[in-house]
């Protein structure tokens, strides 16, 4: 359903009310087209639209709405409801305007007596099989059937359902004699977020088409024919929950009646106002309309004008927002002297004074570099900027890092070295022009679902796919999608595989010499070509270590080099290795080698895990870089910030997260302000992280919940959710999107205000009154953000950096004319086997990842109904390995590595290869990172999460460590009643 909430969104900028009058959010009936202009006349008005546009859409462009039911602009026209018929001069009959394309000089009449009469008849038939309970219907006032009945002037329904031999309608459970109606189907409430009420269904197929065309899951179908036609999830006897439905919400969005309806709307009523904002889950950065009654959020609806998601959503962004009002949320500041004490609720002033005194006390005793910060990739750019500024301008050091350390820091290094900047090269729209896609170390349908749907759409149109992944992800084969090649490599051999691809391209002379000569350093290319051409890099040689058959790899290389526009999308399966940075460089080499940089449909595209990973990196979160990826050693860069902030900036790099923890164990790092991250659960080698945290004198956790890290904290500062503050997120395509305050912060303050209060408690004199002022400071100091203002974002909706005088509208595609660093740089990528090796004690390789319904450490999604799909981490084990160990589906198993051991339940599947096991890290009671080791990327210290040698054996239940940890966590979360 596409609802236009009554009140346009409004926002305060510098105290001024700015109405949202910029974006047309109307449903135009059919999708837009591009083509040469065509002029026609509709009801006497001349209108010009692109060739291929439907008469229905052209009419909407002219301001004339033609009645319709089966048409919506999120899916292709279908022409089934016959309500949109029109008359066209010179043509016979009354064609459906949704399926009739415009033609030059066409003269259309939308409201003749003939079509009015026909439409009324069609509508009468629809209504004759629809319950007339409008006043109590959850879609009352928000129902297209109701609206269109009014539009066609329906005043009477002459038809009543026959009562004999059986009742012939779909909405009465029983006939007048009390007999059950065999055509009636009860409401399906199995999905936690929406209901399916077949009694209200008009079988317009919008839901089925949305599931196919927009989401690409093909979970829904029309079962039966004629009057027996019903929408059906999956096979007979399936309900929505047991079907293949992934709860993206596209069907609910498409439904014109209350047939598919959000439970929140049924419970709370139709929303009355909306605010456009940005999702706080993955790095796709979907735009949503938060729809509310008063300050109560009723639902999140994907925003059609959102340039990252183009009106689509996934189960997390669409439905999993309940964590923001979950009972576990902490709303009062708390402190304690020691971590074995219970928490004490205190005033903000007492908490901030306590924190400031402790941090300053540590610095006095142990020096200025004894404390630091971790910025959040879930918080806004403005908040992140302030946290790193806190370290640099108030603490007086560069001890600032971010969770990108443990995900995409190798992207920063690798793309910086080869291209000259740390960012994806494309926008998401680019995938629509792609001919061959490599997906390596990523699982877009689960990790980046909305992009995954856009990719699947392109694949259904004929683009080819190469998947490089140890695991058979859904993209390898799912409905109407099949990879041309799945290179199921052994974990840890990415560099060998990508270099072997380059070997084939170089030795078979499939490279783009003209591009390389023009855009890259030719001498470096020759060194590189000589290197990759060595026989030791050939697929025939490397297959014995990678496990990828030579012929399969050769075919994949030929396809990528010769198949047209080639794009590479990658994720943490690339970066989280001891050679993460080397693989990123190998990928960049491959793109340059094949000339796949600098235009639509190509490029190197890191899929960022969290919503603002890109932004947190842009904002100078890393300890060696000031905002805009400029090294702290550069005096001319430091001078910019020293002038702006009135301080001296340390020219030496600070500590990275693993280094902070090492230094904490050593006793030289003793205080940490951690905003919106849970390093105890997310970082590798949990026991080492715990030891580091426990050794500190002051850990300040600033978060929504008492997360696992907070078990070791002395100060808890309650955070605000993304619904409760203004700011910006930057997504994986460098798109800066506005986050808008939907409701007041439940904790009293937005996170940027809390950081400011902490800074001021430590002696700073910050006086920001609105995040737009922080953005102004970012723009003034950071060339790639120079022209970014909240006014510009209001005007354009979003912009992609660089946005400056050279690129005033932003930059959808990078490196179009030349690389940021000048000439593209080929770098030799020698494969070095990880030292995390299997052996008799640990014969299997563990790799980790995420699942669609959960997000990161699960702090948010575990506190929503998404747990119905995933209530615990499971260990995927190949049937062969399970058989050898006597493990059956659902058995408890012990998972042990040299770092530690945990237990979880087994899932037997051939998605993983023999010798490889896989699990997620969404649940703290599993603590998958107890298993992972301290091996890390050579350049960036990004942990090697993706390769851990393990053993799996049957178990009776939790390990001693798990039980001890659970008990300690319970003790740590005790809260004393507030003092009178």
């Amino acid at each position: 359903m596409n609802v236009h909430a009554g009140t346009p969104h409004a926002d305060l900028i510098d105290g001024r009310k700015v109405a949202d009058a910029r974006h047309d959010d109307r449903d135009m009936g059919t999708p837009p087209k591009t083509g040469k202009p065509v002029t026609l006349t509709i009801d006497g008005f001349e209108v010009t639209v692109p060739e291929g546009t439907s008469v229905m859409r052209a009419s909407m462009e002219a301001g004339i709405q033609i009645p319709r039911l089966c048409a919506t602009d999120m899916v292709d026209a279908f022409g089934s409801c016959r309500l949109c018929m029109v008359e066209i001069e010179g043509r016979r009959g009354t064609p459906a305007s949704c399926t009739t394309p415009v033609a030059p000089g066409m003269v259309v009449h939308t409201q003749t007596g003939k079509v009015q009469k026909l439409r009324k008849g069609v509508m009468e038939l629809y209504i004759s099989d629809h319950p007339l309970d409008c006043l109590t219907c959850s879609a009352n006032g928000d129902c297209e059937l109701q609206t269109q009945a009014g539009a066609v002037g329906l005043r009477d329904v002459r038809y009543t359902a026959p009562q004999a031999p059986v009742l012939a309608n779909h909405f009465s459970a029983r006939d007048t004699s009390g007999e059950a109606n065999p055509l009636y189907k009860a409401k399906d409430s199995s999905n936690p977020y929406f209901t399916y009420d077949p009694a209200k269904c008009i079988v317009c197929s919008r839901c089925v088409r949305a599931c196919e065309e927009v989401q690409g899951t093909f979970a829904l179908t029309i079962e039966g024919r004629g009057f027996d036609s019903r929408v059906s999830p999956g096979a007979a006897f399936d309900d929505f929950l047991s079907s293949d439905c992934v709860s993206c919400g596209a069907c609910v969005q498409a439904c014109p009646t209350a047939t598919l309806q959000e439970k929140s709307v049924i419970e709370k009523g139709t929303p009355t106002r909306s605010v456009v904002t940005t999702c706080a889950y993955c790095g796709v950065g979907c735009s949503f309309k938060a729809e509310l009654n008063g300050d109560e959020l009723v639902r999140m609806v994907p925003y059609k004008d959102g340039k990252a998601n183009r009106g689509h959503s996934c189960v997390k962004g669409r439905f999993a927002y309940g964590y923001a009002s979950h009972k576990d949320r902490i709303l009062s500041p708390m402190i304690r002297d020691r971590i074995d004490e219970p928490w004490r609720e205190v005033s903000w002033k007492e908490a901030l004074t306590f924190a400031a005194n402790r941090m300053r006390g540590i610095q006095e005793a142990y020096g200025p570099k004894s404390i630091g910060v971790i910025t959040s990739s879930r918080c806004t750019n403005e908040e992140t900027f302030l946290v790193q500024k806190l370290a640099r301008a108030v603490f007086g050091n560069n001890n600032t890092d971010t969770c990108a350390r443990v995900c995409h820091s190798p992207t920063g290094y690798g793309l910086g070295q080869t291209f000259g900047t740390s960012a994806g090269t494309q926008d998401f729209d680019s995938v629509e022009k792609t001919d061959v896609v490599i997906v390596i170390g990523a699982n877009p349908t689960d990790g980046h679902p909305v992009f995954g749907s856009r990719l699947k759409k392109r694949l259904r149109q004929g683009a080819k796919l190469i998947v490089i992944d140890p695991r058979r992800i859904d993209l390898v084969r799912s409905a109407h999608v099949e990879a041309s090649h799945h290179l199921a490599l052994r974990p840890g051999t990415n560099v060998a595989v990508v270099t072997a691809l380059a070997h084939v391209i170089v030795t078979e002379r499939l490279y783009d010499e003209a591009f390389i000569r023009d855009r890259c350093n030719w001498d470096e290319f020759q060194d590189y070509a000589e290197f990759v051409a060595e026989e030791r890099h050939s697929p025939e040689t490397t297959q014995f270590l990678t496990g990828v058959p030579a012929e399969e790899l050769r075919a994949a290389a030929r396809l990528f080099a010769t198949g047209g526009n080639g794009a590479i999308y990658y994720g943490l399966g690339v970066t989280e290795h001891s050679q993460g940075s080397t693989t990123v460089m190998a990928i960049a080499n491959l793109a340059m080698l094949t000339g796949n940089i600098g235009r639509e449909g190509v490029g190197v595209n890191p899929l960022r895990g969290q919503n603002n990973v890109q932004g947190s990196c842009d904002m100078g979160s890393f300890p060696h870089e000031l905002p805009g990826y400029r090294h702290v050693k550069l005096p001319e860069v430091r001078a910019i910030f020293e002038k702006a902030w009135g301080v001296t900036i340390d020219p030496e790099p600070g500590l990275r997260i693993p280094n902070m923890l090492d230094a904490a164990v050593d006793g030289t790092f003793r205080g940490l302000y951690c905003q919106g991250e849970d390093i105890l659960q997310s970082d590798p080698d949990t026991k080492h992280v715990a030891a580091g945290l426990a050794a500190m004198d002051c850990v300040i956790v600033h978060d929504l919940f008492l997360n696992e890290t907070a078990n070791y904290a002395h100060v808890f500062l309650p955070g605000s959710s993304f619904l409760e503050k203004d700011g910006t997120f930057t997504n994986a395509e460098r798109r800066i999107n506005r986050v808008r305050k939907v409701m007041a912060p439940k904790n009293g303050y937005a996170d940027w205000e809390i950081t400011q209060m902490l800074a001021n408690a430590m002696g700073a004199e910050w006086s920001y009154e609105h995040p737009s002022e922080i953005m102004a400071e970012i723009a003034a100091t950071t060339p790639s953000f120079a022209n970014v203002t909240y006014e510009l974002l209001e005007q354009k909706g979003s912009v992609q950096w660089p946005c400056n005088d050279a690129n005033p509208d932003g930059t959808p595609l990078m490196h179009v004319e030349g690389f940021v660093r000048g000439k593209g740089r080929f770098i030799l990528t020698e494969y070095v086997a990880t030292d995390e090796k299997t052996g008799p004690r640990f014969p299997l390789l563990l790799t980790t990842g995420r699942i669609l319904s959960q997000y990161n450490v699960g702090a948010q999604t575990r506190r929503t109904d998404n747990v119905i799909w995933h209530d615990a981490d499971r260990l995927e084990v190949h049937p062969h390995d399970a058989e050898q160990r006597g493990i059956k589906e659902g058995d408890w198993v012990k998972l042990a590595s040299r770092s530690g051991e945990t237990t979880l339940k087994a899932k037997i599947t051939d998605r993983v290869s023999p010798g490889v096991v896989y699990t997620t890290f969404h649940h703290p009671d599993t603590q998958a990172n107890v298993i992972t080791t301290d091996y890390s990327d050579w350049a960036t210290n990004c942990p090697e999460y993706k390769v851990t040698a393990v053993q799996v054996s049957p178990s009776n239940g939790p390990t001693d460590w798990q039980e001890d940890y659970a008990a300690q966590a319970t003790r740590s979360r005790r809260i004393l009643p507030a003092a009178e």
Partner: protein
Amino acid sequence: MSPEKMVYMANQIATFFKSQRGSDQAERIAAHLKDFWEPRMREQLIAHVETGGAGLDATVIEAARRL
């Protein structure tokens, strides 16, 4: 950090730069360490080199002397 971990990380860096063409690997390793290792980490490395540099790749030792 433990000496073993420090030695391991430094040698990892050396492994990469030694795989690159040219004759300035020690200089490039030193530059990487200056750019990414916090001073107390570099001091620990230098101290380790001064006490014999056990376990360190020879190029790392050469690089450490340029820090």
